[in-house]
């Protein structure tokens, strides 16, 4: 079975502060991890994937297989980062079914 856990339902930070959205996963095979974002009144969209090792909008995420974590980080939060963030997992063994966490609502205060 594959499972994604996002322990924080809500996260509030001030503009310019660092932000970390936590994600832990459970998967017996070789996982591929992603972060999706949903801005207010917009569709859910892919933010970044671990395999690309990219930084998108200043966000990065490192896959830690030892801790089975894939936390999303940004050193200086901006107001426009306020959104719902979902961590997601897939893999060969699941025929690439994408499983999402329950999401974390990030609010960046001015």
């Amino acid at each position, binding site marked *: 079975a594959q499972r994604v856990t*996002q322990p924080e339902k809500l996260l509030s930070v001030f503009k310019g502060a660092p932000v970390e959205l936590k994600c832990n996963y459970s998967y017996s095979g070789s996982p*591929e991890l*992603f972060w*999706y974002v949903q801005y207010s009144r917009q*569709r*859910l*969209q*892919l933010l970044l*994937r671990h*395999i690309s090792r990219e930084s998108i909008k200043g966000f990065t995420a490192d896959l830690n297989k030892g801790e089975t974590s894939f936390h999303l980080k940004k050193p200086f939060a901006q107001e426009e980062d306020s959104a719902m963030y*979902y961590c*997601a997992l*897939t893999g060969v063994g699941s*025929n*690439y*079914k*994408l*499983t*999402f*966490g*329950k*999401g974390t609502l990030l609010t960046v205060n001015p």
Partner: protein
Amino acid sequence: GAGVSQSPSNKVTEKGKDVELRCDPISGHTALYWYRQRLGQGLEFLIYFQGNSAPDKSGLPSDRFSAERTGESVSTLTIQRTQQEDSAVYLCASSSEVGVSTGELFFGEGSRLTVL
């Protein structure tokens, strides 16, 4: 349009009635997913179609829920004898064959179902 299209965008129905939700994926996308998002909850997987493979129905919550897909095109999600706990936003997403392995799903705007 080029995106995933869902209809209706809003549906209000009475308890016990059947409802049908429709999803038009992006042309050429082999994979199609249905998710449910209840108020204050995350995305709950319902069903996954991938090409000609048997669909993964492991997320359907009860036998009142069913989904069909014609080839690699339109999909319909049917909920029979609706209950109040079925009230949610039903999201459809599609992905190309490459996108499936890279995790890039394209989501529709969802169908908001309210069961009175």
